């Protein structure tokens, strides 16, 4: 899968959608609920696979998730029951930025 910055992906197993914020350094597979994510404009398979229990912590709207090993970073644009992973490694939610409002 070509995880270009700005590209949108949706979960094959739940309602989650993400936008890639930072591309991985090397080819990688972005997953949600344990299953590879699919392009945002693709149809979800009629018989969706189950959410893998190890990847069922959920994805929260507006959270940024990062995988240190590949450098991949994604922003959750629609929430879902599945959690995000890269090549099987769970992605971690990034901490809130503590920047004062400047606009």
């Amino acid at each position, binding site marked *: 899968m070509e995880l270009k*910055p700005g590209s949108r992906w949706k979960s094959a197993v739940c309602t989650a959608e993400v*936008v890639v914020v930072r591309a991985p350094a090397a080819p990688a597979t972005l997953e949600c609920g344990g299953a590879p994510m699919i392009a945002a404009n693709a149809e979800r398979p009629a018989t969706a696979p189950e959410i893998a229990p190890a990847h069922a912590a959920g994805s929260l*709207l507006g959270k940024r998730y990062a995988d240190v090993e590949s450098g991949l970073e994604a922003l959750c*644009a629609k929430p879902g029951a599945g959690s995000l992973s890269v090549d099987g490694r769970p992605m971690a939610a990034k901490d809130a930025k503590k920047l004062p409002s*400047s*606009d």
Partner: protein
Amino acid sequence: MHTALLLEMVAEALADRAAMGPRAASVSYGELWARARAAAAELALRSDDNVVHIGLNSPAVPLAIFASGLLGRPFAPLNYRLPDEQLRRLLARTAPATAVVDDDMTARVAGVPGVEILPRSVFEASALAAAALDHDLPDVEPDIAVLLFTSGTTGEPKAAILRHRHLAAYVISTVEFADAEEGQASLVSVPPYHIAGVSAVLTGVYGGRRIVHLPVFTPEAWVDAAITEKITHAMVVPTMLSRILEVLEARGESLPHLHSLSYGGGRMPPSVIERALNRLPHVNFVNAYGLTETSSTISVLRPDDHRAARTSDDPAVRRRLGSVGRPLPGLELEIRGPEGEAVPRGGTGEVWVRGEQISGEYLGRKLIRDDGWFPTNDSGWLDEAGYLFIEGRLDDVIVRGGENISPGEIEDALRAHPAVADVAVLGAPDEEWGEQVVAVVVVRSSVEAEDLRAWVRERLRSTKVPTQVLFRAELPYNETGKLLRRVLKAQMQMVSARDRKDVVAS
């Protein structure tokens, strides 16, 4: 990433939260998203490219930003204060375009080839009338989000390009999603054709704050709106702050609801920010430095820095009140010399930046380098702790006998003189030194040029003492309070040419 997605996300998370307008008649985030889609459907009926905005600040601005974004069309806000002829010439450059124009300004811009005028009232009505319409919008891969014409004090204005990815990167790296508390409200008083007018909409929305537009800035209207609308957050340029303080001082008002006030867009005189800190001790002040070409802010002096600078015994900490703080995390910033070489810490040079929000590009011209570094044309230096001090535009630095002299420092010194109301310091050609220091002064009360020179001599190095002090009734500013140094310089050159002629004639 698409800027319209920022609004869609907030509309999903905070559908009933007030998004736009006065407390008594606000529009919710859910409703704003619906209106933006309906307005986009209206614009989609027109086979034009750019979406131009000409008018005062109003709820039509965010509507046009998001509607054009949804269609993948550039949003190009123009300066309605330009003389008709210049405004029409600029508008012609945006063709083919649909121009959303304040109703009382349509006559000024009628008949420009390739531009269809959409009166603001019609545009806003379309967002309401078609609100139920939910047809699919074109599935576009958006690119250019905003075209901003730089003020162009010489020659034709340049159109700075900001792509969706630049603006979205800026927003998601500086604002935590839907983080605003219920009841927070931003007052937007910078004009819509200023980068801060655009970024205020995007960051305000992503944080989930209610946005209140002041149609046009006057200090009285700003203070009234801040009180009536219980404004918690606002951004102003230095001249606005100075005028707001005069109103507050005259009325004995302290704006108890105001939580955060950021300022930027020009050099803040120390005397003004000190007055502000005294007048509004409960407010968190933020100095934000950035350029149009950098998608707004790249460096911030935080509230804690302001407080530390006021209370510290350490002169290095105290002087940081005159800095623009530290670069945003995730951005790289370097000071480089004329050949692009790194300047050691503490040395002055050109400010260069690199990061995902940096565009550095204009229509037909690219200043950003292939490696992503962008030269800002601002002169500055970093202190030991990484605080950035901006000395002004590189072109404005005075080079006297090989020494680089920053006008700002001399202006600050002169502005602290009780008789000085306003001042600009410029370089003028000099046969012996290359350039000489000239101070152009507006006085409050009568004062001799020699007294002002002595005042500077007591405070700064002798090379910084103005050779000439000229007195003027006023200085030329643009409408966002930026001193028009080139205009002033041109006026001075005309005067000196006349002087020379007078000498020859006698």
